[in-house]
């Protein structure tokens, strides 16, 4: 048997391209359904565990899925905005503690999540380096963000405009990284956390500039009436919040109308949660309140429906691949007819000829099996990160 394996090994080495193609085909067709299964299982686990740990989400009426995906996984699809008043409303109910979330902007591809310190307690997020948010313009980054961008406390991170054509819109804000979170193996690892007010500065609702009452360049002033000074666009706004200019940052208007994307409501108990839900069930309510668990269950049902279709497609492709492989082996047999005839003339037994050909198939299948196992193993090891990077965000 060793001699047959040796000869088959030499044949495979000599016909590297053919062998590599066969191995790649078999590996792919075997690994694909297993890896997909693993990723789907991990998606289900991550989606359901995060949803189960988030009791209620309050947001604008519309797509409950967009609301949950944005609030829990910081998905790019931003739901219709609600005002900060919604947070006050939940707090005033005494039924739940509100945690506002404003997940709309990005910094170098990672979502910026404006929230309060309560969010860190609620998610039990711990600092790996640095300290929590304290001052306007600071950010705390997730473990993946730190790794991918090579950032650590003391570095800075600039927010990105919503679109390259948004010339008159959001100014990039240079944020100071003050802390890095420990790995939580959730979407928090891929987020840039800022205080809500910092998120509003990014949006332009708050800004900092030189004191217009003391400014020497008169061409900046449009109108002056008593203490009220109107400046024109020549007035430079700060793009970075520093110790020197932080005092100049201010917000115009009532904070209650400032935008957020959602409020995570943390009810004191089940009864409080039920009562709170009841308050937003009326048709004329301004907001909707959803249980993420229910929304994610619906999403998973759809995913598994799609998976069934995918399984069927993979089965058909797999069958076609097996046929192609059989064809390749039979053509290879024809090409080796002369060799087989020679060894027959030398005195090789029928069984040995069969063993020689079987060894070639066995080696290819074994290598493919090992590669398939490696792919599946790697998928299992990195499924958590893969799911967050590919599907959940």
């Amino acid at each position: 048997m060793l001699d047959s394996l040796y000869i088959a090994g030499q044949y495979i080495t000599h016909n590297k391209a053919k062998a590599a193609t066969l191995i790649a085909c078999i590996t792919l067709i075997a690994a694909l359904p297993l890896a997909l299964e693993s990723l789907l299982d991990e998606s289900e686990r991550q989606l359901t565990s995060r949803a189960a740990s988030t009791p209620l989400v309050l947001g604008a009426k519309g797509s409950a899925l967009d609301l949950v995906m944005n609030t829990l996984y910081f998905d790019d699809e931003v739901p219709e905005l609600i005002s900060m008043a919604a947070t006050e409303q939940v707090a005033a109910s005494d039924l739940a503690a509100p945690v506002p979330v404003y997940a709309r902007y990005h910094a170098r591809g990672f979502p910026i999540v404006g929230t309060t310190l309560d969010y860190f307690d609620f998610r039990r997020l711990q600092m790996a380096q640095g300290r929590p948010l304290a001052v306007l313009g600071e950010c705390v980054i997730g473990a993946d963000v730190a790794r991918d961008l090579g950032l650590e406390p003391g570095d800075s991170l600039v927010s990105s405009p919503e679109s390259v054509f948004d010339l008159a819109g959001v100014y990039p804000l240079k944020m100071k990284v003050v802390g890095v979170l420990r790995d939580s193996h959730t979407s928090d690892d891929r987020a840039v956390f800022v205080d809500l007010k910092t998120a509003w500065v990014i949006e332009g609702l708050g800004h900092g500039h030189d004191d217009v009452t003391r400014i020497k360049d008169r061409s900046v002033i449009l109108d002056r009436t008593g203490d009220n000074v109107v400046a024109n666009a020549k007035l430079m706004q700060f793009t970075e919040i520093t110790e020197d200019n932080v005092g100049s940052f201010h917000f115009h208007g009532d904070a209650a109308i400032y935008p957020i994307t959602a409020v995570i409501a943390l009810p004191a108990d089940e009864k409080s949660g039920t009562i709170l839900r009841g308050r937003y069930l009326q048709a004329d309510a301004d907001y909707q309140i959803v249980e993420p668990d229910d929304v994610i269950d619906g999403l998973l049902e759809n995913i598994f429906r799609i998976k069934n279709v995918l399984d069927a497609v993979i089965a058909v492709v797999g069958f076609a691949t097996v046929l192609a492989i059989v064809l390749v082996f039979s053509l290879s047999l024809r090409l080796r007819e002369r060799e087989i005839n020679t060894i027959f003339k030398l005195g090789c037994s029928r069984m040995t000829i069969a063993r020689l050909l079987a060894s070639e198939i066995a080696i290819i299948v074994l290598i493919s099996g090992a590669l398939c196992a490696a792919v599946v193993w790697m998928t299992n090891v990195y499924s958590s990160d893969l799911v967050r990077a590919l599907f959940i965000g």
Partner: protein
Amino acid sequence: MIHIQGLEFRYAHSDFRLSVPSLQVGARERVAVIGPSGSGKTTLLNLIAGIFVPNSGEITVGNVPVHALDDAGRRVFRISNIGFVFQDFELIDYLSVLDNILHPYRITRALRLNKEVRGRAIALAEQMAIAKHIKRRPGELSQGERQRVAICRALLTQPKLVLADEATGNLDPDNKTQILDLLFANLAERDAALLAVTHDHDLLPRFDRVEDFRAFRASGEANA
């Protein structure tokens, strides 16, 4: 070495018929077989090697009645007792020169590949002046070098009988002479016999005896 008596053979679905009333080859004899194409020269070699089975008659090689062996017995007999040299060398293109020489030992359980056999293979390669090519593949060798590899493969089992089917047919005159010299020298060392099919009448004086096959072809000459 070879005793053939009353041999009759015909292919199915063909009117070709080979009839050899009697043929003897001695232990150290070097016999050339000549005759026109299709006269059955290669068929005779295949019958002696046990690749074909005669319809009637007896073929004895050494003391072995080849005609009476079953398929498995004939294969074991062939690989253990006969060295076969083909016109087109029939080397395995994906194996090195050394692996080609050792190939008979890797395709049967009747022979055991060990250190001594490997040593013998290298010694044969040195004798045939191809030792420096031992790690190369046949595609990297000249025609003459390939035929030397094929001869090494045929001689490795130290057979008492070598069957050569136009073994020098594809070689230039210099190579023919050199290869026959090497082959004859090896056979003489071991008291082995040679039955060689050839079309090359210039080589005939080097053989002990010449058998003309026109005498054995019973009919169907035109079908060759």
